């Protein structure tokens, strides 16, 4: 059984369709990039999976459990966590409080404190600033906090929406290095929205390409980086960070 199954899914906002006929599956431990131009529906797809946006059609499954119609808090309990676009950290809470918000669903209460220390080991700057208001962190630090906060739910499947958004290239390197390490350590299944196919190819993994709300390509990220399909998907306007 696949870790995640997306079957013929559609999402619409009022009458505006954002996604239609989207189908693919993700295996346990896989790393999948979702790419495509602005407005392609990448965020909508992640929101549909985590329960933040309702599907108007189709079925989404995690470990064979149907997610449609479940609340976000119920879906989180199935071991799925979301690191959303724009990080959405709680700016009025301290760094450590941010990390603790998601621990309410855990059964293994004893492991929470060690896991918090684990996050501080992965991101030492968060440990140094654990009692600071999260709103005072820099963009890169907030991205790290958003990832750490997601990890504190002890997930099996992690969705990360554009972790590179607004970050300097060396910080992006750091973020991806940590994501890959975390995946290797924990056997996470990782789905990452990344507009830069070059970046995706360098990190390595599979890629699903979206355009206009549908899947227009699915394969190894490395092959996509050079293919015409990608250029076509972007309508010639290259939005990857390397081009700018």
């Amino acid at each position, binding site marked *: 059984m696949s870790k995640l199954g997306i079957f013929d899914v559609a999402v619409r906002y009022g009458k505006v369709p954002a996604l239609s006929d989207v189908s693919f599956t993700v295996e346990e431990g896989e790393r999948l990039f979702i790419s495509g131009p602005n407005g392609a529906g990448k965020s909508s797809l992640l929101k549909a999976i*985590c*329960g*933040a946006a309702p599907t108007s059609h189709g079925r989404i499954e995690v470990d064979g459990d149907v997610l449609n119609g479940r*609340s*976000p*808090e119920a879906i*989180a*309990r199935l071991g799925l*966590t*979301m690191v*959303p676009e724009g990080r*959405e950290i*709680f*700016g*009025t*809470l301290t760094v450590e*409080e941010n990390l*603790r*918000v*998601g621990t*309410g*669903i855990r059964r293994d209460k004893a492991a929470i404190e060690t896991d918090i220390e684990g996050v501080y080991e992965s991101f030492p700057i968060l440990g140094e600033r654990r009692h600071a208001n999260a*709103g005072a962190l820099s963009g890169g630090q907030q991205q790290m906090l958003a990832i750490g*906060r*997601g990890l504190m*739910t002890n997930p099996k499947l992690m969705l990360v929406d554009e972790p590179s958004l607004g970050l300097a290239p060396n910080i992006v390197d750091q973020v991806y290095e940590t994501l890959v390490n975390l995946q290797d350590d924990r056997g996470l299944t990782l789905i990452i929205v990344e507009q830069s196919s070059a970046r995706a190819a360098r990190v390595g993994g599979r890629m699903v390409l979206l355009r206009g709300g549908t899947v227009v390509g699915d394969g190894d990220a490395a092959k996509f980086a050079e293919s015409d399909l990608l250029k076509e998907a972007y309508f010639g306007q290259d939005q990857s960070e390397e081009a700018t």
Partner: protein
Amino acid sequence: MNAIPQLLFDALSLGGIYAMAALGIALIFGVMKLVNFAHGEYIAFCVFALIVPSTDAVAVMFLGKAPAILLIPMLLLIGAVVAVASEFFVFRHVRNATPVAMMISSFALGFVIQNTLLLIYSSRPKAVSLWPELNQPVSIIGASIPLLQIIVIFTTLLVVVTLALLLKRTRIGLEMRAAAENFTMARLLGVRANVVITGAFALSGALAAAVALIMVTQTGVADIRMGGQIMLVAFIATVIGGLGSLPGAVAAGFLIGAASVILQGFLPLEARPFRDAFLYTLVIVSLLLRPDGLFAPRSTKPRV
């Protein structure tokens, strides 16, 4: 003679009542973006829960007969239950509606509660004598202060400190603060929307009960309209404090209490009947200068 300490105690005790009522409104606005205009009716409901249902002018104590040690927790519980029930039966079903629709449903609920009370107790204000000994004056720094005022000030302090500790130190408090800032994100992290909202209503209802107890002891009447008046002031306090900001609600509650007492004390005699006009002028000026409130939190974007 000792006008200044007297004014100070008046201001602190009146401000304390406003602050507690404002907290009740701000708590719910924080997690739900709902301005709950039924809050005043929770207060009235709690007042009338003290007396035996009847339309007579002099009230016979019902719950009010119980000793304080029983009466206080029971009334707090009644307030909490009424608020939680109203969430369960009314607000839960309009949770995804527009803020205006939610606000209107709170007005509607308020009318239902008020009319129910009207039906059972009639509209005539009733004399209620709850803990009359608390209105006896005691001497403090040369001023003669009713004991109740001192109790009110300490109660407010106790409530504010307890609430702050609850929000800062407990799991549900953490979840409430996270949900108040970004409800969807909190839910994505597994925070149960129903638990947080029910918790906020329970706290808000208990606050309404505390205000009810103080008001009835202080004024000695049970009046169907008493909830509406305090609700108005409390709502203004939450707006001035910055909708959704709990410290702002407390500070603005005290500010309005102080302004009201100072105006009462220093306005020329012939202007005193118009005290509220002066008060609301100050409110308008404050809103013109700081439309987001005097203590607006950085990350709250009020939708109303």
